[in-house]
């Protein structure tokens, strides 16, 4: 950010130019009785040195950094290489607003173009946009897009093992639409979607089936079987991914015939930051590109015939088409998408695969150490998260863990009353085998 101070002479000149005699005159339209006549009740200003001490003492009150965390469930702690912070804090990336003007924003536009390419490749889809606010709103926008493609259909099937917050956001977005969200139960043994219920509820009224894989319980869904059900009823298959690192290891949703793939990109070089801001991704088939929400950066040539980048299909966006725009998403998470791009370029295809394998093998290690201490709740294959059922009451265990400065996982009873004493545990490269041992011994 630029810091541009005004001298009293500057202020005087500006007032003169606009024809008022004092700064107070600028507020003359506010009635006198509503104006504050005394100074604000604030502590005196601090020097930079004092301010730094003050802020550091506040930061020390945040104990989270001293804890070992096994929390996942949509937000994942991963190591962020220094290069991500260094490059993304360059002024051109950090302080720039969204790139409306290609003539001054080639750097940002190219980075976003690369982001789109990377997300297309990871999801196995033909086209990805410049990013969304977060995974939950990306899923909700996916539902709205499916409705644009099938305006005459009214049902969307929403399995209960999709992230509860994602389901809540979909509910909010679709409240005013002619769409009924039909909940589909999960199989209490495998943790995956109950396929016979899904088959029963699927009909020609169905415009889309939503699937999260790995789902909220960390286990993988049978996308092949679900895609067949979609096909039989001409419903779109919308796949949500909360942990995109899994895409490095698994067969892509696109390869299973998904129509829309959405999700969260926080895992790629973005910190947890108390739950936000996050960054969503959105990918689809080329034939649906005009129904896709958000911005897209396209490659073109400039007047000199050189490779150049610019926003494309903007004619359908809100700043041009107003109330008839494809969606109300008129921006993207440019900075966080930039961080994801830098992160992915740093790791590369092989690095990302290795990291995904590392995460998965730690979860396997966790399962080994859990033997005799707690039961693995669901039988389906997992990526880097697993649900366990503890032998003693969970609140007691959580207290013991906290005393050892361990955040053991997410208690599922809050979202699923039937899952008493069930804990969703996530392992990433930031958890060592020692952490895992301590966790398991404390259960």
């Amino acid at each position, binding site marked *: 950010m630029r810091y541009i101070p005004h001298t009293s002479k500057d202020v005087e000149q500006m007032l003169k130019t606009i024809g008022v005699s004092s700064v107070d005159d600028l507020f003359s339209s506010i009635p006198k009785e509503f104006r504050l006549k005394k100074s604000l009740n604030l502590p005196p200003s601090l020097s930079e040195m004092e301010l730094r001490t003050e802020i550091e003492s506040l930061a020390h009150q945040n104990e989270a950094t001293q804890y070992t965390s096994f929390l996942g469930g949509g937000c994942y702690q991963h190591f962020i290489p220094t290069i991500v912070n260094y490059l993304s804090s360059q002024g051109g990336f950090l302080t720039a607003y969204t790139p409306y003007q290609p003539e001054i924003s080639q750097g940002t536009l190219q980075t976003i173009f690369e982001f789109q390419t990377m997300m297309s490749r990871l999801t196995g889809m033909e086209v990805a946009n410049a990013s969304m606010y977060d995974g939950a709103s990306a899923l909700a926008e996916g539902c709205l897009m499916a409705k644009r493609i099938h305006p005459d259909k009214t049902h969307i099937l929403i399995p209960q093992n999709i992230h509860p917050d994602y389901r809540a956001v979909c509910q909010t977005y679709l409240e005013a639409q002619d769409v009924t969200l039909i909940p589909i139960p999960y199989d209490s043994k495998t943790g995956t979607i109950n396929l016979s219920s899904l088959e029963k509820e699927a009909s020609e009224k169905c415009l889309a089936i939503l699937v999260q894989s790995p789902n909220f319980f960390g286990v993988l869904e049978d996308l092949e079987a679900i895609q067949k059900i979609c096909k039989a009823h001409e419903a779109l298959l919308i796949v949500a991914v909360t942990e995109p690192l899994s895409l490095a290891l698994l067969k892509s949703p696109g390869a299973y015939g998904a129509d829309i793939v959405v999700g969260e990109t926080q895992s790629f070089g973005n910190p947890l930051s108390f739950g936000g801001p996050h960054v969503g991704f959105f990918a689809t088939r080329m034939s649906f590109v*005009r129904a896709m929400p958000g911005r897209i950066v396209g490659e073109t040539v400039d007047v000199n015939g050189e490779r150049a980048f610019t926003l494309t299909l903007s*004619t*359908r966006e809100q700043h*041009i*088409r107003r109330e*008839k725009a494809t969606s109300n998403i008129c921006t993207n998470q440019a900075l966080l998408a930039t961080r994801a791009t830098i992160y992915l370029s740093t790791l590369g295809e092989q690095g990302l695969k290795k990291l995904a394998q590392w995460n998965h093998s730690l979860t396997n290690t966790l399962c080994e150490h859990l033997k005799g201490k707690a039961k693995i709740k669901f039988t389906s294959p997992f990526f880097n998260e697993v649900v366990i059922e503890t032998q003693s009451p969970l609140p007691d265990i959580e207290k013991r863990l906290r005393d050892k400065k361990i955040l053991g996982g997410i208690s599922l009873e809050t979202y699923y009353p039937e899952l008493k004493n069930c804990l969703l545990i996530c392992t990433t490269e930031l958890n060592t085998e020692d952490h895992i041992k301590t966790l398991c011994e404390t259960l």
Partner: protein
Amino acid sequence: MNFPETLLYTKDHEWALNKNGTVTVGITAFAQDQLGDIVYLELPKVGTTLEKGKTFGVVESVKAVSDLYSPVSGEVVKMNDPLKNSPDIINKDPYDKGWMIEVKVSNPQELKDLLTQEQYQKLVAS
């Protein structure tokens, strides 16, 4: 700019050609010129019921996306399929090969509300 005498026009720059109660609809030479290169077209399926003055489709050019307004009420009986892959036909030949849909008119009285060539020419000139 050419505005054939045989056609009827709307103030939204669509043209209509009536043949025994079946009306062919397209956009005028003025409309395609204002839009510039047309890159995409959304048309209603055969069997769709249209209402006079309401949107029946969308035309997208490199400059803008515009709605298409139906000059008459009725049912869509035919669609110009080649436009799907080559919407630029509209730029080249808006009145002949660039026709968009055929509508079986439900209320022939509505045709009387449309503009004549002379009236439309005045509108464009103003």
